[in-house]
């Protein structure tokens, strides 16, 4: 795994990278198949530009964002984006993702699992599908748990083209009482039951690398 210090503009291609964002604003150009890990990075704004025929997978894990973060992700032709956001937060935070599908035959899948332990946590996902584009797919699967704090999610898909397949799903809730009771009936106290469910909720959006990182650094 490559560890990369991102200071300004960087070109990444055909590798997996762990990013360390030095400047809080960065531009990242993607070519080929790229997987990025952003773990507990303090970011203001990142612009991702996917060249034609590129695939980008991002795992964003953060266990306490305190600021406003903006991702601008630009897809042109025949690109695939898989953005996985996992956040456990104790402070106010705001994450905005602007995903622009400017060309044809692109696919965008954005998944979030957000847990608010305290205060107000806002997630805004904007997918823009440009006019006169063809065969784009945009899917948003966004879930949040109010675990003492408040989660606010805005799942926006703005389609200016008719030739698009778009779908969004958003759920925000508390821990299911029935599930907590079930785990308690198996011998887990209420705190352990919630803890194990919270871990499962966040882990459902992580790959093995980031799960191992979380286990070793928890």
């Amino acid at each position, binding site marked *: 795994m490559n560890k990369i210090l991102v200071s300004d503009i960087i070109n990444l291609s055909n590798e997996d990278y762990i990013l360390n964002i030095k400047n809080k604003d960065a531009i990242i150009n993607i070519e080929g198949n790229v997987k990025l890990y952003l773990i507990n990075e303090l970011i203001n704004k990142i612009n991702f530009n996917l060249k034609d025929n590129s695939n980008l997978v991002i795992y964003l894990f953060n266990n306490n964002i305190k600021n406003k973060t903006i991702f601008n992700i630009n897809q042109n032709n025949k690109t695939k984006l898989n953005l996985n956001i996992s956040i456990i937060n104790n402070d106010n935070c705001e994450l905005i993702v602007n995903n622009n599908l400017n060309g044809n035959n692109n696919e965008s899948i954005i998944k979030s699992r957000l847990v608010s332990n305290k205060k107000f946590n806002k997630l805004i996902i904007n997918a823009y599908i440009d006019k006169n584009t063809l065969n784009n797919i945009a899917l948003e699967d966004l879930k949040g748990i109010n675990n003492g704090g408040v989660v606010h999610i805005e799942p926006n898909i703005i389609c200016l083209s008719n030739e698009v397949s778009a779908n969004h799903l958003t759920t925000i809730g508390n821990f299911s009482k029935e*599930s907590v009771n079930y*785990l*308690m*009936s*198996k*011998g887990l*106290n209420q705190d352990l039951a919630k803890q*194990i469910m919270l871990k*499962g*909720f966040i882990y459902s959006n992580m790959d093995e690398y980031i799960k191992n990182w979380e286990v070793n650094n928890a």
Partner: protein
Amino acid sequence: MLKIDNLNISINNKILIENLNLQINKGEIHVLMGRNGIGKSSLAKTIMGNQNYQVTGHIYFNNEDITNLSIYERSKRGIYTISQNPVEIEGVTNAEMLRTALSDKNESPINILKFNKELEEICQKLDLDKSFIHREINVGCSGGEKKKIELMHMWMLKPSFLILDEIDSGLDVDAIKLVANSIKEYLNKYQPGILIITHSNVLINTFDNYFVHLLDDKKLLKSGKKELATEILNKGFKEITSKLDEHLL
């Protein structure tokens, strides 16, 4: 083992059970029968400690008053429920839940090798694919698979009192037979007290001896041995309860 003393159960000011008394000893099977919506599952949930109900009276377990204990505390003392439709827990695997529960119960980390070996043996016994060990609890499982998973949990956690709430509903005959044989084996090995709620005799016919209670009109109207179950299933609840009403008049 379990003693229910003058128990009253209500929910949202609606009385479900009035002045119910019942004692279930170690190694005994008690079958609770009654019409739909009469309060059988509410009684099961109350024994397990569900806080949705208003309860007066007492529930004793091994001579300890557990009426005000939480579900967790009751589970720690050995009470275990298998319901007709166990919940699905996304993101939590069977192995992870069992490891956590057993570590808490034993107050020490478990031996992983021994744990895995035991789980694999239980899966084999239940004709359950080993992959279920690391699958999310009951997620995407059929009714039969869910019951086997609950039995897998039971064999690992080794409770001393079982509440089986219509676990035979929705299962085919072969699946019921497997579930029944597993419970019979568990009964022979650990001698738990068992409360079975059922509408059919397929499950209970596996057992040689059991007590039967008919719940109606908020109370146990009639109690008897296994012949009562046959009578109820042959005649139906309506005929039996109306005869009892005439007798009482």
